[in-house]
């Protein structure tokens, strides 16, 4: 009888522990950032691990090049004729509506270093706005920075070896003047909402 009581007691304790465990896990795993109209602001800016990319002029591009200004990072690739140009055109529109002090520099991070040479990146992004900037990196540097940024990408074969496509995270990442991640924005993008979010976040943090 006592034995039966004990097993019920232990079962009960076990159940409570399990529930507590889940509650604690949820507390730690749920990002408690601030909801924005088109994304989420992190509770605390998150520093990036050390990284080195190559810019559109074939120069090194790392944290020092991000310092001192806000950056809106957009992962994509130049053999992407639909969603990447659509987003870049939208970002041009968003930036045009922002005061210079609240305007982030748009940096296009190519996840396709195999085909996207610095010169090609420069032609591609400056077609939209001469102020837009292209960067990339060979592997394994690219996967390291992608991990740090919390983005993913994958090569998808096409109908011929050179017509492959890249699946990639559709988010935009806002970095502060200390090169830390401050917010993520997710599609579908609405110029007015994105503009309002940038004003709020950059305006508060500047």
């Amino acid at each position, binding site marked *: 009888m006592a034995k039966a009581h004990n097993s019920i007691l232990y079962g009960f304790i076990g159940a409570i522990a399990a529930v507590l465990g889940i509650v604690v896990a949820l507390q730690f795993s749920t990002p408690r950032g601030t909801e924005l109209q088109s994304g989420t602001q992190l509770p605390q800016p998150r520093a990036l691990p050390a990284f080195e990319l190559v810019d559109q002029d074939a120069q090194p591009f790392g944290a020092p090049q991000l310092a001192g200004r806000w950056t809106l990072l957009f992962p994509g690739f130049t053999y992407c004729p639909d969603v990447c140009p659509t987003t870049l055109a939208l970002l041009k529109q968003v930036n045009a509506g922002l005061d210079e002090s609240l305007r982030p520099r748009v940096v296009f991070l190519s996840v396709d270093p195999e085909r996207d040479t610095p010169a090609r990146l420069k*032609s591609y992004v400056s077609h939209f706005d001469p102020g837009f900037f292209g960067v990339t990196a060979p592997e394994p540097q690219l996967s390291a920075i992608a991990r740090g940024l919390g983005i993913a990408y994958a090569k998808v074969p096409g109908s011929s070896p050179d*017509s492959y496509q890249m699946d990639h995270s559709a*988010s935009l990442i806002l970095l502060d003047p200390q090169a830390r991640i401050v917010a993520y924005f*997710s599609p579908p993008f609405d110029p007015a909402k994105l503009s309002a979010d940038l004003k709020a976040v950059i305006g508060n943090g500047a």
Partner: protein
Amino acid sequence: MRTAAVVLALLLAACSRPAGTLQASEGWIRASAVDGPMAGYLSLHNGTASDLRCDGASGADFGAIEIHRTSVENGMSRMLRDQVVAVRAGGSARLEPGSYHLMLFRPQRTLPAGSSSRITLSCGALSVAADFIVKAQ
């Protein structure tokens, strides 16, 4: 005599109402500053009495044309190949940025903004040709 009149009336009706066809309009291509695939968009109207499935396209200015669709799933932007655009009888469909588009591989000539390119879309037994205007953005 009566039969002839009916036939004539039907013929006249057919001539004055070209609606029983597949129509393409608002075709445009986004200009690109680099070599590589381009994307084309258009509106389709199916004026026929049958549902149509458009699954192919061709044009002299491109090495190959495929119908693709951009989709965002679980935060990933993906390109889905070999798509079919369904246009119901009497209905319309749009190929537009961020969704269905014509993937225009290997441009055979430079297509600056303002130029145009003729592309034929195949929808089962029917096909429709349209001039696509190249736009800067």
